[in-house]
Structure formats: C-alpha cells, structure tokens
C-alpha cells in the first residue's frame, strides 16, 4: 500500500549532520513507513550547478537519476536539495529528451521532509514533545522555489510543550548561498549577523529550519558570536519525545 519511502539524506547530512538523517528516518518509521536507504547516493550536484559548472552538475544529476529512479517516494531533509532535483534537473537536460522524460517522471516523487509529512503522509501531529521556545527560519529554496511556508509551522504547532515565536523577517536569507558563503565570505557573514539579530530578538533558545545548510551558517555565526542559542533541524525536533 505504498508505505515505503526512500531517503535522500543529502551529502551534507551524510557527512556533517548524520543525526538529522537518523531523526528523519525515526519520524518516518514511527509513522509506519518502511525505510530504504539507497547506498549509492551522493550529492544532487547543486554546488556545481550554482557555480556555473553545468557539465559537472549534469554528471551528478545523472547519477542521482540512476540511484533513485526505481524508488517509489523519495524524502530529503532539505528544501534546497529537493528543489535542485524538482526545479533544476530539467534545465540540465533540456537538450536530452529521453533523460528529460526520466527527470519529469522522478521529480514528482521527490519530497522535502515537512511537505512529505503534511501532503503525502497526511499528518501534522507526529507525537513529538519538545519543551523549548523555538523560532523558525524559512530556507529560501523551500520557501520560494517549493512554496513551503505553512507545513513546518503546522507540524511545530502540534509539538507538545513547544512555543513558536516568529522572527521578523523569517523569510530573509541567512546568507549561506552555497559557494557564495566562501566566495563573498565577508558579505555572507554580514547577512548571517543580521539574521542572528532577528533570532535573538525573539528570545527563543532554538532555531529550527528545514535546511542543514542554513543551520550550518546560522549555528556557525551564533557559535562565533558566543551565543548559547542552538540550531536544530525540524526532523530532530519532531523526533524528540
């Protein structure tokens, strides 16, 4: 009855934040999903694509297609990597009709974690308890490319003991931007510090987001500023009980 789901954990979660992947798997298992982790997965290719290296991005995208093509539903703990697959893969193969058809067949089955929960699994209350004051940062690609705004907030609203305090503005970029964060490091850092000011003003002790990359930028800047505020992926919050 289709209760099987494949994880695309993303290279960042695989290599740097494995707990996020474990938390995501835990939540999905609790909801009765049978979990599959295709071991040959690596990276969606976004770093190359965003840096102007289309040929290299195409190689990564082709690999992704090969690895995930047979999967029924694919869930990723990242709006940005999901959007790379669902919104940009097609662009890479506009001159290859056959590959393009495969991309279009796949992209409908790739989901960002929070929208998978609300739209596919059809749940808002996953039975989590997290007694903290939380603020939510909208990742730009989740928000503007995938149009995800309410799903994570609805999920957070059902977490027992959690108080959500919106930062103003929640939707302004944290300044990560992939290679932008090192190509224009000073500018990227300045953007992160502006984001942090908005976070601090809420009085929250935890920043939650859908993207490990935003969280790395925000936590990196919080840590540098000596702040005790911590960052958590939505999956980690939803896995708490």
């Amino acid at each position: 009855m289709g209760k099987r789901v494949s994880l695309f954990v993303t290279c960042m979660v695989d290599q740097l934040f494995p707990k996020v992947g474990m938390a995501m798997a835990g939540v999905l298992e609790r909801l009765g999903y049978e979990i599959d982790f295709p071991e040959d997965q690596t990276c969606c290719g976004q770093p190359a694509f965003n840096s102007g290296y289309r040929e290299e991005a195409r190689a990564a995208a082709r690999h992704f297609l090969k690895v995930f093509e047979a999967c029924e539903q694919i869930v990723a703990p990242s709006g940005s990597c999901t959007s790379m697959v669902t919104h940009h893969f097609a662009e890479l193969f506009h001159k290859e009709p056959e590959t393009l058809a495969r991309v279009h067949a796949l992209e409908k089955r790739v989901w960002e974690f929070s929208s998978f929960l609300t739209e596919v699994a059809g749940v808002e209350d996953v039975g989590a308890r997290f007694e903290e004051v939380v603020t939510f940062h909208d990742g730009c690609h989740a928000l503007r490319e995938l149009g995800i705004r309410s799903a994570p907030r609805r999920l957070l609203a059902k977490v027992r003991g959690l108080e959500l305090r919106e930062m103003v503005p929640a939707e302004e970029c944290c300044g990560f931007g992939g290679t932008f964060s090192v190509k224009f490091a000073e500018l990227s850092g300045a953007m992160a510090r502006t984001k942090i000011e908005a976070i601090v003003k809420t009085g929250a002790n935890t920043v939650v987001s859908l993207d490990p990359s935003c969280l790395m930028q925000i936590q990196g800047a919080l840590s540098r500023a000596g702040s005790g505020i911590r960052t958590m992926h939505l999956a980690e919050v939803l896995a708490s009980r």
Partner: protein
Amino acid sequence: MSGEFDQKIHQTLEDANLQLAIYTATGRLKERRIEVVASEALPDYQELRTQANALKKHAIENLDYYLEEFERNVTAHGGKVVYCKDATEVSDFVLSLAREKGSRLIVKSKSMTTEEVDLNERLEHHGLESVETDLGEYILQLAHEKPYHIVAPALHKTRYDVADIFEKNLHVPRETVVEKQTAIARAVLRQKFLEADIGISGANFLVADSGAVVIIENEGNARLTTTAPKIHIAVAGIEKVIPRAQDVATFLKLLARSATGQLLSVYASFLSGPRRPGEVDGPEEFYVVLVDNGRTKLLPDKAKRQSLYCIRCGACLNTCPVYRKIGGHSFPWVYSGPIGAIITPQFMGVSHEPGLPFASSLCGACGEVCPVKIDIPKVLLDLRSDVKKTETREKQNRLEKLAFKAFAWVVTHPRIYEFLGRVASSMAPSGNGGWIRSVPPPMNLAPVRAWLSQRDLPPPPSKSFREMWRRR
C-alpha cells in the same frame, strides 16, 4: 572576481553609517511595498503581474513591429525618432542638435538610460551645461556621483550630507532642514527651467499605438523639463515600447506600488509630439532617441531576454539582502541590485565584472517581488554558466575548474565518495565538543579559511549517516 568589486563591497560593509542608511531606507521602501500589494489592499496583484509579464513578453518578441509603429505615430504627430546604437551616437545627436540650435543650457529629468551612456559627462566635456532637476539626481550631480539606486538615487545621503554638498557647491549657508534644502534646490532649478534651451527626459513607456512617451514622476520636474524648453528630447531604451495606450493602466498599478509603495505616482505625463498649431504650451520640437547600447544582444536568448521586461521600479533592490548590505556603488555599472547583476553582464559583456553574477545567495527574493515577473535567479544561474564558459585561462579559475571536475568524479563514484569523506573527517579537528574556530594545515584550504573568517565550522561526526545506518 576582480579586486575592485571586492574592495568596494568591503568598504561598504565597514562603513557603519552607510550600512544604517542603506538598511533603513531600503527597509522603509520594502515595507511600504508589502503593505500596498497585500491581497487585502490589491486583490488582483498576482493577476496584474501575470498580465504585465505577458505584455512585456509580447512587446519584446515583436520589438521590431512595435518600434516601427511607434515611430510612424511619433512622426505623424510632428516628432522625430532617432535610433542610436551606443553612447557615442546618443551624445553626438544631442551635441549636433545643440550646435545647430545654438543651445547652451540643458535641463534633465531622471533617466537611467542617460546615466548608462554618461550623457551629462559627455555634454559637459563639449562645453554644454546639463543640469539634473530631480532632487536626488541634482544632489548627486553636485557631488559628482552616480545614482546609488534606480529609483532613489541619493538613498545613501543623509540630510547632513546634503547640507554639506549644498553649502560647498551652491555657496549657501549650511541648511539641515529637508524642506528648506528642497526650497534651495527649487530656487536654483526654477531659473534653469526658464533659461534652458533643451529639456532631456527619460521615458517609462513608449506607447506604439499612439506614439506617446509616458513619464512617471513625483516631483513635477519632468513635466517642466519636457514642456518649458523649446526642444524636448526623450531618451529611452528600445525595450520601453508597449503595444497600446490601454496597457499603461496595468503598469501604472504596479509601478508606483512596487517602487515606493505609493498607489500612484504624483504625475503621469503622456507626451505625444511637439506643440500643435493653436496650442499655448509644449515644446516646439520633439525628439525620441531610442537607445540600443547592448540591448539587441539579449534578444536571441529566450531566457535571458526577459531581462528587458524591467520597468525600473527598484523593488528587487529594496528586498535584496545583498543590495541592502553592499549598496549601489559596489556594483560595477549604473544599474545596481539584482537587476543590475543580470543586465550589466549582458549589456557590457560577462567579462566586464565576472564576479557579479556570483554575488548572490540565490535567495530568490528579487524574483518574488518583480512586478513583471523576471526570473532573476534563473538568469543569474545562466550567466554564471556563461562566465565559466568564457573564462578558462585565469589561474584561480583553473583550480576551481579542477575542483569541480574532481567533484563530478567523486559524486559519481560512491565508494570513493565514502572513503574521501572518512579521510576528511579523520583529519579535521574534533572541536572538543563545540564548533571549530580554526583549522590547521593541510585542511585549511582557501574556502575553509574564508568560511572561518566569519563563522565556526561544525565538528566532524564520528560516523557518517551511511555508517550509522549500516550499524543500526
């Protein structure tokens, strides 16, 4: 990326007063826009955007047809259309006309196109006096600066800066009250309007079916510029043409709201030709200078030519987290912000400033607020690819190219990917429970150092996800 671009960004970020001025001014414009386009205030906002996009798309795809129709109608009303391919042709035309008529003084209303072709500088070089009459532009002309922002050119100047500029250049007592500063400028400019031989304006829209030049403004100076002197020259990019007079309504609803958060701008002038027999005012001669200056280069590419839809509202600047940090003068040309980042490389060539399309976190806020729905992030991505295709011999670039070749190989070889991941994390410092502040050689590569110049790095986990998954 050139040193100059980086240097200007650095200087702007270091200047605390400037940071505050930019952030406050753009924040105000941004907030006002959000209020007036909210669904309660303008229920059909998204439909208007779709309509505006369709109109622009149609006009650009049929540019030759509408330019000819526009020209026919201007000519029928007694005006003259002049085509100029570049900056030199624009200034040559104005100079020869000024010589022929014995003109000496020119008044100008706001026009980004004339900024683009350095018209003032070129005219002054040939002994003509060309005076900007938009208050912000006038302040900047006195200060010998280019506009900081498409709509609010002097956005970075405080009233104290203006007081200094007026005192030094107009030899008036130092005045810091804004209303009084305006009165000072007005007194000077009124006299210029009365004495000027030629008025040069820009154009917001060129209406093909009526041959009208439409100018939107708040100060009334464009109305004076275009009607008081005997000669009016409107300078406009060829992409400003729209099919029908009724189409203006769609754009009017969007332009002021997107630009300044006004429901309508104060003045909307429809100028179609010189004074007719029996009319009491208006110029005796009416010229429309249509400027290419690189625009036609954009036409063959379906994705990129949408850059020509821009109506110069500046909304993308106000909402852009990058513009709000680095301001207008960091940008390598007169157009700043997201729209500047996509049209500069296309008008001037990508090598003009190869770093420009990369100076974006690709957050997409610009595309979201664009009233004509230009997909700015998409064009930025295409330009990034263009930069990489055209620049292969630079040293830094070779290293990066090699790195991405390696990336492509590693991510298509899962065992190698896993192995390298394990090596990297075994070599990284542990962080002693916290995040990492510094990394010793050989892991302190340039990107790592750049990251650490601003932020800490996460400590490497003891196992990757795939290792954890296998062992669970």
